[in-house]
C-alpha cells in the first residue's frame, strides 16, 4: 500500500478546488499555487526514488485487488514524466503571475491549470485503461476551458475545432475500450497484457490496437496533427506553453504504454504503422515549420516534429531507442515550454507575430536573444544541451535495428527544426532594430526568470545526464520487458 502514489494527482486537484473558493484573493491563489507545485515536485521525486529501491509501486483504490479494482501504478517512466510535468507547471505558473492578467486570474485560471495537471499526472500514473480515459477527459475538459478563456474571437473559433476533434477521438477511445472489453473481458492494463499473450494477438485484436493507434495519434498529433497548430497558437502564451509542453506528451505516453505493454505481439503491423506515421509527421511538421511566417505557427509545427521524432523511438522499439525517446520526451517538455514562452514574450514586446515585421530585438533585449539561441541549439541537439543525448540514443537504436529510413527522416527533421528556428533568430533578433529607445517596452523580470530557469534546466540535464541515467535505464528496461510491470501489478493473483 502506497498512498503517496495518489498524491501527484490529488495535490493539484485539491489545490484547484480550494482556489475556486479563493477566487478574489489573487495573492493567496499565487502563493498556494506555488506551494502546491513545490509539494507535487517533492512528492514525485520521493516516489521516483522509492521505485529505484522497491521496484514498481502500485496503489489499489479502496483496497480492491487488481484486476478487479482500479489502481495507480508508478514505474520509472511514468514518474519521470510526472516529475517533469510538475516542475514545468511550477515554472510556468511564475510566468503566468506577470503575464496572464487580472481578467484571467479572476476567471479561475489557476484552478483550471491545476485540474489540467491533475489530469495529466493521473494519465501518467493510472494502470487501468478506462481510468486513463477518465484522466484524459479531466485533462481535456480543463484544456477546453483554458483555450477559450478570455473569449477572443480566434480562440472561440479554434476551440470549436479543438473540442470537436477531441470529442471524436474520445469516441474512438470508448469504442476501442468497448471492443477490448468485449474481446478479453478486462481493462486492467497488466491483466490485458496477460490475457492477450494467452490468446495471441489475432487479427481482431490487431484491429482494436489500430483503433487505439488512431485515438492516441489524434491526442499526440502523430500524423493527425491538423488541429494542432491552429489551436496551439490561439490562447495566451502561458496556456499555449502548457499545452505544447504537456498535452501531446500524454498522448505519446499512452502510446508507449499501450504498444509496449499490451499490443507488442504484432510489431510488423502496429510498429511499422507507427514508424510510417512518424516519418510522415516529421515531413509534414517540417514543411509547416518552414512554410509559415507567423512565429506561433512555426513553434506549433515544431511540436509536431518532436512528436514524430519521439515516436520514431517507439517504432524502432529497442531498449536503446526507448532510452533515447524518454530522454527526448523529458527534454522536449522543458524546451518546448521555454520556446513557447520566448515566442510569447517576443509577441508581447513587439505586438507583432510575423517574422518579417520584427528585427533587431537582440539590441533591445540581449538576454532574450541569447536564451532563444540556447533553445535553438538545444532543440537541434548540440552536445552540451539536453536534446543531444536523446538524439544519439534514438540514432543508435535506429542503426542497430537497421531502420535507416527512420534514421534519415529523424535527423533531417532535426535540420529543419534548426533552420525554422534560425529563420526566427536571424529575422527577429538580428538586423536593424525596429524599436527605438523611447517606446522600448520593458521586459518584466517575472517573464525573464522562468525562461532562465528553463534554460538552466536544459543545460543541467545536458551536462548532468549521468544523474538521470539510472532512472531512464530502469524506465527503458521496464518498457522493454512488460513482464516486470505485469509481475508488479498482479503479484501472484493472476
Amino acid at each position: 500500500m502506497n498512498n503517496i502514489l495518489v498524491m501527484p494527482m490529488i495535490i493539484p486537484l485539491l489545490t484547484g478546488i480550494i482556489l475556486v473558493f479563493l477566487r478574489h484573493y489573487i495573492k493567496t491563489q499565487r502563493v498556494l499555487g506555488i506551494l502546491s507545485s513545490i509539494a507535487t515536485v517533492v512528492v514525485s521525486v520521493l516516489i521516483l526514488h522509492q521505485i529505484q529501491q522497491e521496484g514498481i509501486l502500485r496503489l489499489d483504490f479502496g483496497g480492491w485487488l487488481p484486476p478487479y479494482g482500479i489502481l495507480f501504478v508508478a514505474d520509472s517512466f511514468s514518474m519521470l514524466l510526472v516529475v517533469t510535468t510538475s516542475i514545468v507547471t511550477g515554472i510556468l505558473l511564475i510566468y503566468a503571475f506577470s503575464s496572464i492578467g487580472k481578467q484571467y486570474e479572476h476567471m479561475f485560471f489557476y484552478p483550471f491549470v491545476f485540474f489540467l495537471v491533475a489530469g495529466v499526472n493521473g494519465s501518467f500514473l493510472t494502470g487501468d485503461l478506462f481510468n486513463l480515459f477518465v484522466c484524459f477527459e479531466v485533462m481535456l475538459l480543463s484544456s477546453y476551458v483554458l483555450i477559450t478563456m478570455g473569449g477572443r474571437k480566434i480562440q472561440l473559433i479554434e476551440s470549436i475545432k479543438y473540442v470537436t476533434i477531441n470529442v471524436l477521438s474520445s469516441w474512438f477511445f470508448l469504442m476501442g475500450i468497448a471492443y477490448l472489453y468485449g474481446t478479453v473481458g478486462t481493462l486492467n492494463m497488466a491483466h490485458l497484457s496477460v490475457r492477450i499473450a494467452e490468446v495471441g494477438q489475432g487479427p481482431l485484436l490487431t484491429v482494436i490496437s489500430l483503433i487505439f493507434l488512431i485515438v492516441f495519434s489524434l491526442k499526440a498529433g502523430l500524423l493527425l496533427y491538423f488541429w494542432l497548430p491552429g489551436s496551439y497558437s490561439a490562447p495566451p502564451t502561458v496556456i499555449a506553453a502548457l499545452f505544447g509542453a504537456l498535452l501531446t506528451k500524454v498522448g505519446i505516453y499512452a502510446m508507449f504504454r499501450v504498444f509496449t505493454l499490451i499490443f507488442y505481439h504484432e510489431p510488423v503491423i502496429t510498429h511499422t504503422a507507427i514508424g510510417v506515421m512518424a516519418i510522415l509527421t516529421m515531413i509534414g511538421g517540417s514543411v509547416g515549420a518552414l512554410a509559415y511566417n507567423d512565429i506561433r505557427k512555426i513553434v506549433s509545427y515544431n511540436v509536431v516534429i518532436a512528436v514524430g521524432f519521439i515516436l520514431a523511438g517507439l517504432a524502432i522499439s529497442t531498449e536503446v531507442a526507448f532510452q533515447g525517446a524518454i530522454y527526448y520526451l523529458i527534454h522536449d517538455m522543458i524546451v518546448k515550454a521555454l520556446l513557447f514562452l520566448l515566442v510569447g514574450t517576443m509577441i508581447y514586446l513587439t505586438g507583432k507575430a510575423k517574422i518579417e515585421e520584427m528585427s533587431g530585438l537582440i539590441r533591445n533585449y540581449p538576454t532574450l536573444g541569447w536564451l532563444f539561441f540556447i533553445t535553438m541549439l538545444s532543440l537541434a541537439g548540440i552536445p552540451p544541451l539536453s536534446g543531444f543525448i536523446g538524439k544519439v540514443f534514438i540514432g543508435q537504436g535506429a542503426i542497430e535495428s537497421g531502420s535507416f529510413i527512420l534514421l534519415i527522416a529523424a535527423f533531417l527533421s532535426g535540420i529543419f527544426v534548426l533552420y525554422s528556428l534560425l529563420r526566427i533568430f536571424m529575422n527577429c533578433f538580428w538586423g536593424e532594430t525596429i524599436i527605438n529607445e523611447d517606446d522600448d517596452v520593458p521586459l518584466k523580470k517575472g517573464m525573464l526568470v522562468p525562461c532562465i530557469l528553463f534554460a538552466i534546466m536544459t543545460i543541467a540535464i545536458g551536462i548532468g545526464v549521468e544523474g538521470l541515467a539510472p532512472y531512464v535505464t530502469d524506465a527503458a528496461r521496464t518498457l522493454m520487458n512488460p513482464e516486470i510491470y505485469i509481475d508488479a501489478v498482479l503479484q501472484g493473483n493472476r
Partner: protein
Amino acid sequence: METLITILVGFLVMIAVYLLLSRNLIRVILGTAVLSHAAHLLLMTMGGLKKGSAPLLGEDAESYTDALPQALILTAIVISFAVTAFLLVLAYRTYKKTGTDNLQQLRGFEDE
C-alpha cells in the same frame, strides 16, 4: 439481441456522422451527443446484454449481468454530459461574438 443493438449503434453513428459533417454548429453538437450515445450503447452491448438479473443486491438472483460496463457507461455519460454542456455554451458564445453559426464562415482566421 446483441446483433440488433450493434446494428442500432451503426445507425446512430451514421446519423452522428451526417450531423457532424453539416455546416450548422448546433447540428455538429447534436452529432457529438448522438456519437457519444452510440459509444455508450456499444460499451453496454460488448459487456453482454442479458446474462442474468440486474446487478443489484436486492434482486437475490442466481446470476447477475456484468455490472462493469454500466459503471463505465455512467462515467462516460457524465463526461459526455459535461462536454456537450460546454460545447453548447461555447457555441452560444461563438455565435454572439461572430454573428454566425455557419462553420463555413468560421474557417481559418484573419489576423487580428
